[in-house]
């Protein structure tokens, strides 16, 4: 008997639209299954449904979830509660909101356990040590808000482990963590599941994460399982066109590859389809794909895929293989610099967060700024744009001195230096149409109004591949990727000489990230200078010319991207690179083959 057996699991919203459609899989004890998908794929809904739980507005409408021989969905509410307590552990995505701020760590760790409190306490101490946390009483008396993000995540893991469940469900537990913390947490998870013989389901949007912990990998899209199989089957020889496309859109730290985005946009949760859910975006689509929903079939690689043309796809997918982009020629040294920064120091109150940061951006160059949380990279970008008051440093723009504070900068300087924020959900005015968002800077900087302004806005939106028919929509009607494109168009319409991009892809799905990165590449080819701030080394590899690595407010390494990421000199960069997970792919071998 398998430890976990899920058959035909279906979840629907109150209005009847299906958000998880007929999901089935099985897990042996000690096995880890990675469940991967983009936003809206239904992966988190599945994670909760494994506990017989659905959020308000959704209901589990069919299927079986058998854990340790018990069918959770057939139980009465009281029995289900007992079963959850006994059989399943759950690790939430964001422990900062999932741990109760009013209760101590100790109360939250012991309350879910069976048996007497006195017996549980030694067990809790043991588990805390396993996850690398202190186990003394002083620590147990703390409240969640007194811990760091990494510690909170470990407490959440310890909470799930404490009762020795049959199954642990991890719902994107590493999303908010640094690469180095993430690497340590993942290693721990894999070890714990193997040692304790617990089955686990690990939900993530990150293929590299899933490839690291998962023995099995299941790919979800629009509420359906599109492909499932062993890690090697799914990641090394993907059979479903969606899995292939998803893998193509992941940037690599090892090579500067063009990223292939998936055309179109992901369907809204609960959308209805007659045929294959991926047909509208698929490169291999045929008429029959749209007629009837394809079943999950076994493929010649050993995995199962929901595709009618799977063997054809497997034989022909090689034509998708892309060649590495040519090494970027170093730009002419003597052409001066768009922006030069000397000895930038910045503080928050008494805490100094930036120490003597200096760099140049040459015309047409893309400078990658890499660092983990707390490295000061966001503060640095705020200093550059003039929003951070508590700073000292010498800025020069095109050889002329640049005042450090925004209020001292001339209109012309403001127009030349444009900024794109991390979160496109927050950076666009929700009550303004996107055409208006793009027209406003035109009015402000160039005094353009009416038709002339709208024509320019149209040009800018088309440059970022936003069709003009969307111009009168509001941001809420657009997807995250589209919003970020609008934010870029808003910056571009000012005709800047330098674009500062602050983590602009980190809130986006990987396939959407690919399309935004490729958009930036076209701007780069048009000669725009950019500062690209990110925590993602792979993105820097795909777009940066030069890179500076920030650690604790200091530049620890800088140089050509190729040199720094191929042979890092500073131990910090080496550690960062070693902790960055890669999707193991056949690219390295196949990229030499003719396309």
């Amino acid at each position, binding site marked *: 008997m398998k430890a976990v057996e899920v058959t035909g699991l279906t979840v629907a919203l109150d209005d009847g639209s299906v958000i998880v459609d007929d999901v089935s899989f099985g897990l042996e004890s000690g096995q880890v299954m990675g469940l991967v998908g983009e936003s809206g794929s239904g992966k988190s809904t599945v994670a909760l449904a494994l506990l017989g739980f659905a959020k308000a507005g959704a209901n589990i409408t069919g299927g079986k979830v058998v854990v340790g021989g018990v069918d959770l969905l057939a139980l009465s509410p009281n029995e289900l509660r007992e079963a*959850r307590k006994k059989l399943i552990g759950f690790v939430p995505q964001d422990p900062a909101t999932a741990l*109760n*701020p009013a209760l101590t760590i100790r109360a939250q760790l012991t309350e879910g356990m069976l048996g007497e409190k006195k017996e549980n306490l030694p067990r809790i101490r043991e588990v805390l040590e396993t996850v690398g946390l202190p186990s003394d009483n002083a620590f147990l008396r703390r409240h969640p808000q007194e811990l760091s993000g990494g510690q909170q995540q470990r407490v959440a893991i310890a909470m799930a482990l404490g009762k020795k469940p049959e199954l642990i469900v991890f719902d994107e537990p590493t999303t908010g963590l640094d690469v180095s913390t993430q690497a340590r947490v993942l290693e721990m998870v894999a070890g714990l599941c193997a040692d304790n013989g617990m089955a686990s389901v690990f939900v993530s949007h990150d293929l590299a994460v899933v490839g690291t912990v998962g023995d099995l990998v299941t790919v979800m899209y629009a509420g359906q399982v599109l492909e499932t199989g062993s890690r090697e089957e799914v990641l090394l020889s993907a059979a479903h066109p969606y899995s292939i496309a998803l893998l193509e859109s992941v940037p690599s730290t090892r090579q500067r590859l063009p990223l292939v985005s998936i055309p179109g946009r992901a369907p809204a949760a609960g959308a209805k389809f007659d045929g294959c859910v991926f047909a509208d975006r698929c490169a291999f689509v045929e008429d029959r794909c749209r007629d009837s929903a394809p079943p999950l079939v076994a493929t010649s690689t050993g995995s199962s895929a929901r595709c009618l043309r799977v063997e054809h796809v497997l034989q022909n997918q090689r034509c998708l293989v892309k060649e590495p982009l040519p090494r970027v020629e170093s730009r002419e040294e003597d052409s001066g610099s768009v922006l030069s920064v000397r000895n930038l120091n910045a503080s*928050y109150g008494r805490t100094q*967060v930036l120490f003597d940061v200096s760099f140049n951006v040459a015309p047409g160059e893309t400078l990658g700024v890499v660092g983990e949380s707390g490295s000061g990279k966001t503060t640095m970008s705020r200093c550059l744009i003039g929003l951070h008051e508590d700073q000292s440093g010498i800025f020069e723009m095109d050889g002329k001195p640049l005042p450090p504070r925004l209020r001292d900068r001339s209109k012309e300087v403001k127009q030349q230096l444009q900024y794109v924020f991390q979160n496109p959900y927050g950076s666009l005015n929700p009550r303004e149409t996107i055409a208006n968002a793009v027209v406003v800077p035109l009015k402000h900087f160039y005094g353009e109004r009416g038709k002339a302004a709208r024509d320019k806005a149209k040009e800018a939106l088309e440059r970022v591949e936003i069709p003009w028919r969307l111009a009168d929509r509001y941001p809420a009607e657009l997807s995250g990727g589209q919003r970020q494109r609008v934010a870029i168009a808003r910056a571009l319409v000012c005709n800047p000489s330098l674009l500062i991009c602050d983590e602009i892809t980190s809130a986006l799905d990987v396939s959407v990230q690919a399309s935004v990165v490729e958009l930036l590449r076209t701007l780069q080819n048009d000669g725009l200078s950019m500062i690209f701030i990110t925590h993602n080394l792979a993105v820097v590899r795909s777009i940066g010319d030069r890179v500076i690595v920030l650690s604790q407010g200091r530049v620890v390494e800088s140089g050509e991207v190729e040199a720094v990421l191929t042979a890092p000199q500073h131990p910090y960069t080496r550690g960062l690179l070693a902790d960055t997970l890669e999707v193991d792919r056949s690219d390295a071998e196949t990229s030499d083959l003719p396309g």
Partner: protein
Amino acid sequence: MATETMTEKALEAAPPPSRSRRAALAWPIARRALTGVVTLWCISVIVFVATQAMPGDVAHIILGPGASSEQVAQLNQNLGLDQPLLSQYLDWLGNVLTGNMGDSIVSGQPVSELLSERIFNSATLTVIAMVFIIPLSLVIGLLAAVFRDKLLDRAYLGTSLIVTATPDFVIGSLVIALFGTVVFKVLPPVSLIPPGDAPWEHPRQLVMPLAVMVLVGVTYLSRLVRVSFIDVLESEYVQLAIIKGLSMRRILFLHALPNALAPSIPAASIMAAYTIAGSVVIEYLFAYPGIGSALVDAVAGHDLPMVQAIIMLMAAAFFCFNQLADLLGTLNKSR
């Protein structure tokens, strides 16, 4: 990354030593006290001007229609009413600041003496009302949140909306008609407390005014409690508690209650302020000898020192509770 901006904001807001934390708390309190003084001064001006603008001449009223103009002028002089308005105001303000509220024009006794028993009676009524309002609101708000959108919750929301929309005196009159005069006649329709007696020596007289105050208070406060409970019940930590297989009782009282209580406490404080101001109507309706009914009598009798003293008193109490609510809210946020 979002986490980074958060850490940096945390750095920005982090209070390094405890000394500055105490200082950070002292400043808002001092600022509130200062604005309190300014506010009360503004109120004193308004009260003084408004009472002066009341129709009718005080001396005429006191002396009756048959008084001669010399008598009126004499009395005006005795009362200081012939002085310019500004000097009258300054005299009055100086007296108030030294604790002398003046003498009642009607009875000639000191205002403070007349009011002390009234204040005690009103405070008793308010405190007893709050003792019922707070726990009842908690329980009702919690139940409504747990049975959200079910029949019970909808019935409760509808009823509380009707009660809130109905003026206090209408509710009061209905209650009197129902239990005091027309239908049942089980309770005294007026709540006269003989002078010198403590209100609790006459519990039957207290039932109806209390019932109206509690009804009005609970329907307001419990809706706030309901909303903050709903917020908490939708939070991820409650979801995790459900997923952990905890009992409903533990989730409600241990996980939800402390977090839902925090935003309700300032609301309860505002409620107390409202109860004090609202007591005018209810005390008058039930003829309960508190400051509310004293105010109505004083206005009717053109007893200016009484009116001024009572309004200043009510304004100060209202202001204090409001500031308390603000302060509790700030403390809660900084936690």
